[in-house]
């Protein structure tokens, strides 16, 4: 097992998220059914469509649900890591777009390179751009004490509009007609994970990252320090002599990088070009994904799949059961509310989300 040293430590965290998740799902299902009935729809038909559209067949599961879960898992990991360290990075959406722009840029420019070089270059560009997108909020938090909740949200708008500018301007397709880039080079595209399906190796990247992050958080000293700073910056400083600021800077940047990777993987693995509306708000859904997983990376793998299935099934509800798209948004909002509510219940009297303080000795 991952947690060899003190096995029992896992016990308390392992089942709690599961119970919360089941509670959230049950609650959401109940409220959703009531809403559907009120709207004159058949909840059973909707549920059947949802199941068919997400796990109804191998092809649907692999080509739709799994593909859709990749950006949710990656951004979920980004959020989980940041939250674990007490960094309230709400900016995964903007970091994702930054990563997508960088990946598209490299993927378009590197046409002459072989895939073994170009694919890593594309992903590295996405990582770097995501991290770069986190630099400004990070500096404002560390140097000026400006809360990162607001700054990262603002950077989301900048990121989304930057991507829009790119597809209207510098990176617009060579025909100059539509707001999108040309298709990136064949050698820049992620190879399929399962031939004949849409599933690309980005899924393997996401799964391995979740596994690696779990091992890192629970087995490595740096991971332990991150957890300590996130749980109590004061205790980490006074009892652990941990430089909370360094942990914070590191986690902020890595979180941004992973969210950027989500954008790069989406461009290189799915769309093969940059579009304005690349993300339906994955960076925000990621918060629910991460919280629902109890901020455990392996849990994010599960909840990311769950949300992927939910989103895939939501499409089927429209197609097969005629449920309007707006209802899908309601379902997602309900899940997020249920998650946040149950999460809060779990730790009554816990910290207030944005009001965290770094334990600083001296400084200023």
């Amino acid at each position, binding site marked *: 097992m991952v947690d060899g040293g003190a096995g*029992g*430590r896992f016990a308390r965290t392992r089942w709690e998220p599961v119970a919360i998740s089941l509670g959230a799902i049950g609650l959401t299902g109940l409220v959703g059914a009531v809403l559907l009935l009120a709207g004159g729809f058949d909840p059973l038909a909707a549920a059947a469509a949802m199941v068919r559209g997400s796990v109804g067949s191998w092809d649907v599961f692999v080509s739709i649900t799994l593909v859709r879960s990749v950006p949710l898992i990656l951004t979920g990991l980004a959020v989980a890591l940041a939250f674990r360290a007490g960094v309230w990075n709400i900016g995964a959406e903007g970091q994702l777009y930054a990563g997508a722009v960088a990946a598209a840029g490299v993927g378009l420019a590197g046409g002459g390179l072989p895939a073994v070089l170009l694919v890593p270059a594309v992903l590295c560009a996405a990582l770097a751009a995501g991290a770069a997108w986190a630099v400004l909020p990070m500096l404002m938090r560390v140097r000026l004490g400006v809360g990162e909740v607001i700054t990262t949200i603002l950077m989301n708008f900048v990121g989304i509009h930057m991507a829009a500018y790119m597809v209207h301007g510098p990176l617009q397709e060579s025909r100059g007609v539509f707001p999108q880039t040309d298709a990136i080079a064949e050698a820049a595209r992620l190879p399929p994970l399962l031939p004949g399906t849409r599933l690309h190796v980005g899924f393997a990247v996401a799964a391995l990252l979740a596994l690696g992050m779990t091992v890192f958080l629970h087995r490595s*000293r740096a991971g332990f320090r991150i957890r300590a700073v996130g749980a109590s910056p004061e205790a980490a*400083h006074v009892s652990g002599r941990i430089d909370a600021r360094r942990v914070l800077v590191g986690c902020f940047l890595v979180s941004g990088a992973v969210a950027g990777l989500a954008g790069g993987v989406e461009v290189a693995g799915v769309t093969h070009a940059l579009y304005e509306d690349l993300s339906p708000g994955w960076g925000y859904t990621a918060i629910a994904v991460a919280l629902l997983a109890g901020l455990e990376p392996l849990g994010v793998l599960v909840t990311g799949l769950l949300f992927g299935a939910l989103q895939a099934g939501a499409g089927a509800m429209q197609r097969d059961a005629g449920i309007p798209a707006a209802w899908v948004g309601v379902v997602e909002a309900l899940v997020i509310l249920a998650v946040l509510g149950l999460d809060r219940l779990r730790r009554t009297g816990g910290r207030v989300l944005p009001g965290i303080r770094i334990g600083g000795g001296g400084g200023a």
Partner: protein
Amino acid sequence: MTRPLARLGGIERRFGAVLALDGADLEIRAGEVHGVLGANGAGKSTLLNVLGGMLAPDAGVVEIEGRAVRLGSPRDAWALGIALVHQHFTLVPRLSALENLALGAGHRRGLAGDLEKLMARTGLRVPLDARVEQLGVGDRQRIEILKALLRDPRVLVLDEPTAVLTPDEVDGLFGLLKELAADGRAVVLVAHKLDEVLGVADRITVLRNGRTVLTGPSAGRSVPELVRAMVGGDAVDPIALGLTGVDAGATGAMSRPPAERGETTTSARALHAGGVVVRLRGAALADRSGPGVHGVDLEIRRGEIVGVAGVEGNGQRALALLASGRAVPDSGSAELPSGIGFIPQDRSTEGLIAEFDLVENVGLALQREPEYVRGPWMRWDAVRDAAERIRERFEVAAPSVTTLAGALSGGNQQRVIVGRELTLARDFLVAENPTRGLDVAAAAFVHAELRRMATEGVGVLLVSTDLDEVLGLSNRVYAIARGRLHDVPEERRTREGVGAFMLGGTADG
């Protein structure tokens, strides 16, 4: 005399799996100061919270003047004339003292005038216009008491009011409590210091494991009798009992067991033999929440305990952070050894992480030690062994090392911290109010460990607001006032002598 003002009978209260109160009784009469005693986790605070309407009991009766009542909220208790002064402050930092008092009393005309009269009568003076966040703990405590008194209560309940007051202020407070009782009110008081309680209380109630084990007049009770009632007859540390202090310590060895006396002497001898392990020169450190320290010159040798006494908020925090290497001096220099242990005063926010288990909490400090790390990885097996050793050696009452720190009582949390920091303190140990809030047995344990460390050649810096603790344990004594250290000469190491240094900071006191 006939009918008690308030009576709690057979109170039970459970928190999850923990039975905090298991049929506790408390009877309060008009015109008395009533002391409530008990070890940590005995249920004192829970019982008082039931009386104050903060907690509903699972079973038992609450009677006010013979009438059974239901106290669903603090409001119900206020309506019946019961006012509770909390152990934890409930003030709004951004508001002024006056505004906080107005919050408690409800807005009314002439509040400031009433307050002036109240302050004059009670001697509890606070700057009404100052914002609470700028005030020290002593002032905050006074505001809490004034807030309660403004309600003109029939029963005034105080949970640990003396921890943050100077000896003079404690005397003043006790005088006030006696006056209030003489008025026909009842005062209920929780304090750890038995001699304090015996000095002021007319009657006492002792709790153990959630039950009332002794109740009756305080006159004629001896401290050992009370201790036996509280802890069940363990060996006790006279310093922790509040018995020793200056006079006993100055007059001789009578109140100390011979063996301990001997250890102290050994360490006194070691003072001359041991080398300097810590050297602060002109060190200064600003502190946002207090005065900080400046111009600190301090040398500590192996084997000696250096005590720093002072009223809370005079720079102790900054001194402890500097000496423990948690902060770098703004100016001046600090030469520190590598093996430093630090017992911080605030164990729940700084000493431990409540949602981590004991292994992780031990690992929190040990992760800096090479033998608990392999490359980038934690050696959790080694940390777990260390945690097991601490749990056994320091008798931490936890079912296993995977128990969450937050589930432990205050005394057991402190045992974990002490155990952990002692393993780190190869050269030097900083202890900041190490026994605050601990019961007698736990405090005795901590004191014994500090002495043991000194005999093993470790330099110890004891920073405490507890004068008796400082005087009873230290080879050398400093007083800290407004961020400056004052060396207290041997002949002035009495309660009054040090107290003068603490307040005025002048040699002539």
